[in-house]
């Protein structure tokens, strides 16, 4: 896939095609897979996302740790109090996906399992609100995938590589770009959506309590979904941003590389290392993790080679 937003957009323009078509052609060229096969795989992924959301919104089943389960359902049951229904549904669908993930349900890692709620939260909700056709939604997913691939090439999409900014930040940028594209935004507006979204996620650490992909992950997926929608709104309205999307992605990569390992998915710092986080880790049967968190204060670098992604 493309190594920069700039090259992708220039390639689309040179071929006289839109951003989704450029991604489709590039993927066909890279892998030899035919166009319909690629579109079918995306439709299959969307179906898995829909099923996960449906299950997460109706089930009260807890994860094995007991940390998550039932919150998405509660949010929907309480109904919208501040903004409209779509806003609440976006949050609930993002949380629902992470709750299903936590209890070993089937999800699409987009781009990772820990950030799997953002794309479905945003795109499945706005599809209903905005009336996108099934084919257009696949086009939107192609744009989302194009953005994620550039981020993976230039920076990182892994919490272990760059913190939560790399996971939910990337998922938010992907979603925001897809919404902007599907709402008829120009390539320039799509680029702005990426830059705006990602600059707002810069520096976000990955500090999963008890080392589990549950808390704060489920809530961070919800807030990343909101970030994506807000930035798409601004980008579609034509608001500009003076730093290019590739430059913002590079900054995200730089911040990730300089981020202390305690904040890169090792569960040795941040929320995970608070007294509350340590209490939960002990209850979840991970006393070794708590010992490492304490040692981590003296020798964080050495003890920080652990963690999920």
């Amino acid at each position, binding site marked *: *896939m493309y190594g920069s937003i700039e090259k992708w957009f220039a390639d689309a323009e040179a071929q006289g095609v839109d951003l989704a078509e450029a*991604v489709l052609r590039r*993927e066909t060229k*890279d*892998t030899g897979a035919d166009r319909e096969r*690629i579109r079918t*795989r*995306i439709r*299959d*992924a969307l179906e*898995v996302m829909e099923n996960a959301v449906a299950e997460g919104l109706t089930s009260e089943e807890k*994860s*094995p*740790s007991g940390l998550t389960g039932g919150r998405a359902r509660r949010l929907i049951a309480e109904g919208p109090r501040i903004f409209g229904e779509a806003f609440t549904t976006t949050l609930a669908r993002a949380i629902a996906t992470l709750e*299903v*993930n*936590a*209890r*070993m*349900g*089937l*999800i*699409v*890692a*987009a*781009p*990772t*399992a*820990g950030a*799997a709620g953002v794309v479905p939260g945003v795109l499945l909700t706005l599809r209903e609100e905005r009336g996108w056709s099934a084919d257009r939604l696949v086009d939107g*997913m*192609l744009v*989302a*995938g*194009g953005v*994620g*691939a550039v981020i*993976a*090439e230039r920076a990182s*999409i*892994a919490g*272990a*590589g760059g913190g939560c900014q790399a996971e939910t930040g990337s998922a938010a940028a*992907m979603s925001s770009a897809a919404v902007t594209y599907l709402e008829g935004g120009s390539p320039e507006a799509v680029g702005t959506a990426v830059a705006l979204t990602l600059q707002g996620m810069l520096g976000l650490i990955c500090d999963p309590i*008890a*080392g*589990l*992909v*549950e808390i704060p992950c489920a809530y961070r997926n919800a807030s990343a979904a909101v970030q994506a929608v807000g930035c798409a709104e601004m980008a579609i309205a034509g608001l500009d941003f003076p730093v290019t999307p590739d430059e913002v992605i590079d900054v995200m990569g730089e911040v990730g590389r300089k981020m202390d390992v305690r904040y890169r998915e090792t*569960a040795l710092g941040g929320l995970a290392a608070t007294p509350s986080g340590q209490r939960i880790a002990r209850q*979840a*049967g*991970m006393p*070794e*993790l708590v010992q490492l968190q304490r040692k981590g204060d003296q020798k964080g670098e050495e003890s920080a*080679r*652990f*963690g*999920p*992604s």
Partner: protein
Amino acid sequence: MTGLFDILGPTMVGPSSSHTAGASRLGYVTQAILGGAPERARIGLHGSFAMTGEGHGTKKAIIGGLLGYAPDDERIRTSVEDATAAGMDFEFYTADLGEDAHPNSAVFEVERGEEEATIRGASIGGGQIRIHEIDGFRVDLSGSLPTLVVQADDVPGTIATITRMLSERGVNLATMHVDRTGRGEQALMTIESDADIPEELIEAMRGQDWVHWIRYVRGLV
């Protein structure tokens, strides 16, 4: 290079691409190299796999993989019960594979009938894996492409014969790796190809008198 479905995927049983999807893939490739689900398995978990694996279903994922369940097979949730019901004898232990080992590494000692294998690999993130060692030979496999593993005598012409047989059938090689125990002793060839390798071609390779055994691993997307 990042592919589209590295970003819009994998579709997987949660909760962790490295500790669940990657773990099941390690088990899957291990059983594929063995030629089927093992009757006995000893699995050493190293580093983060040992420490935080419990909360991520790592053991269920590995056993599921050994039963031949792909990372998106929801039977992973009941794999331990399924394996017990199928009569698989398995145990896990905490392994120390050394400072240089990837934190998400595992070592498998597996047996099936007359066959046995020792396989070491790591889950390197995003559900991707590398197999680093088979029966003491160093290898470097992803498990995502169709892969041939050929154990043969280290005699002249073996590599040329294998690659010629593949090229005559129009099979395009993606990677090739050879390791040997010593000059004139045993060699292990691992070949990743872009497309499926026909069964009769593998049979023809088995017919070479310097070939000890061949395993074929169908790639897991």
